[in-house]
């Protein structure tokens, strides 16, 4: 089932001369985990905003094409209507706090209160997402008393409480230390197991390589490449658009030149593939 469909999307910000997104078409299936990568100003955040309806409802500009979230055209529905279908988590954890609630529990409940959900259901749903995000023990704390990683988990919990079908995350680990980033990723993996559709703009390619079902590469607002992590992350286009191959891929490429990597074996993008590739070699044997 199609969760999200973008057709020929072109968007130019009111203050911009060049389109931030140009003629982009994309289909995401339900339950898919899609990574979005690209250099700075490649259109990742614009794409995430367009998926959640922030564009064109919040940012002015020229919008052409169509974005459909579960068959709902984003231009024809308000952000608050779309929020039940698609959740967006942004980069800066602190800016996603409402500032209107005392505790972590109340902060997560804030969105549900705005949507008029009944109190009993709010309590149940908040408890559920706090449990999922590992914030249950902090439910009575002030959102401002949390670390950056905990605040980002709170932002994630706040989005999840509304139970959107699709979750879009715009570089959610940028301001987090590796441990906190890893914890956020663990939550995403749990969500994927539960069948949630996830779109994740992310710089940490090694994690996308391991966990994403598909990766799309943006360059200058255009779709440069789309495919499985193994296909995309070892493709020369990655270097052409200003990104770099993962260390695993680079090492295997060098090894291949020297005959130390099986010629027919695809270049690895994960540690497991690298170990398997090199482990398959007999000691001292050079591949022909």
């Amino acid at each position, binding site marked *: 089932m199609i969760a999200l469909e973008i057709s020929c999307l072109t968007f130019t910000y009111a203050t911009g001369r060049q389109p931030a997104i140009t003629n982009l078409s994309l289909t995401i299936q339900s339950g898919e985990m899609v990574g979005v990568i690209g250099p700075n100003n490649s259109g990742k955040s614009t794409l995430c905003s367009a998926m*959640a309806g*922030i564009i064109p*409802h*919040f940012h002015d500009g020229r919008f052409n094409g169509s974005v459909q979230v579960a068959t709902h055209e984003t231009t024809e529905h*308000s*952000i*608050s*209507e779309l*929020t039940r279908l698609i*959740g*967006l988590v*942004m980069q*800066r954890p*602190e*800016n*996603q*706090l*409402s*500032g*209107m*609630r*005392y*505790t972590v529990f*109340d902060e997560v*409940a*804030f*969105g*549900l*209160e*705005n*949507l*008029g*959900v*009944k*109190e009993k259901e*709010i309590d149940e749903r908040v408890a559920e997402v706090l449990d999922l995000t590992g914030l249950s023990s902090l439910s*009575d*704390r*002030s*959102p*401002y*008393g949390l670390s950056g990683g905990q605040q980002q988990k709170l*932002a994630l919990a*706040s*989005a999840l409480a*509304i139970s959107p079908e699709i979750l879009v995350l715009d570089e959610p680990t940028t301001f987090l230390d590796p441990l906190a980033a890893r914890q956020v990723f663990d939550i995403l993996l749990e969500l994927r197991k539960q069948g949630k559709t996830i779109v994740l703009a992310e710089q940490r390619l090694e994690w996308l390589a391991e966990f994403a079902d598909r990766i799309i590469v943006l360059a200058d607002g255009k779709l440069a490449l789309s495919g499985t992590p193994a296909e995309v992350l070892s493709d020369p286009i990655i270097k052409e658009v200003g990104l770099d191959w993962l260390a695993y891929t680079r090492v295997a490429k060098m090894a291949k030149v020297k005959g130390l990597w099986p010629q027919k074996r695809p270049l690895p993008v994960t540690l497991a593939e690298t170990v398997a590739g090199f482990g398959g070699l007999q000691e001292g044997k050079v591949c022909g």
Partner: protein
Amino acid sequence: MQQHDPATGGATLYIHKGTRLHRLHPFTKLCYIVATAVLVYLGPNSWSVEISLISLSLIAALEGGIIAAFWRLAWCTMLPLALFMTVIHGFLHPDNNTILFTVIDQPFYQEGLLFTASILLQLAALLSASLLFVLSTHPADLVTAITEAGWPTALAYLVGSPLLLLPAMRRRIRTIQAAQRSRGLDLEGNRLKRFRALFAIMAPLVLGSLIDIEQRAIALELRGFNAPGRKTNRRRIADSSSQKILRLSMIALCLPVIIFSLLSP
């Protein structure tokens, strides 16, 4: 030790305590600010009014367990103002006539000093009432009280958000100062140097704050802040008949003062 938001939040000036002052309805405390302003600026021109109001606020701050922050913030605000105004009016006030003493052949006058004292007392009374409110009222309570009263949520946020954003901005200034210092920017020295340094701080502060505000607005939209229909209010602000009577009394006290002030020449 002060306790800001539960578990050292500190994003607002609010200090979390469960005292009677904290439990007062935000509108009761707002009415006190309004009554103070009316009495101080439109009421009888007497220092005893201001001193009584300041004393009342001090007692309330003491009872509310916020006296340390109250005292510190009051002095931090009033002291520079007092120094500046005393010098200006003591030497230059147009009504100056009675010389108190001279400083390097420049006479310092009693009239200017009394004028300064009068202005400072008015400000101190109003500041005390405002500090009581800010230190003992969580923005969330204010916003909830406004929405409970049937006012639009956007207005409620407009009123409540400055209480939240100002301390956040203060934190941002400190971060920018540290970042600019690490790049060799001299924030010490004479006024010209400090004035130049101000630009290096203001530009990232303003731009950063604008981005923050935009992101916060998007975050609120995404959480249905502007969703049509009835909202659920899990948090209710306690109110009582006695508080309602108190608020009406304060308003009733203000009305004759305002009318008298408008009618008097």
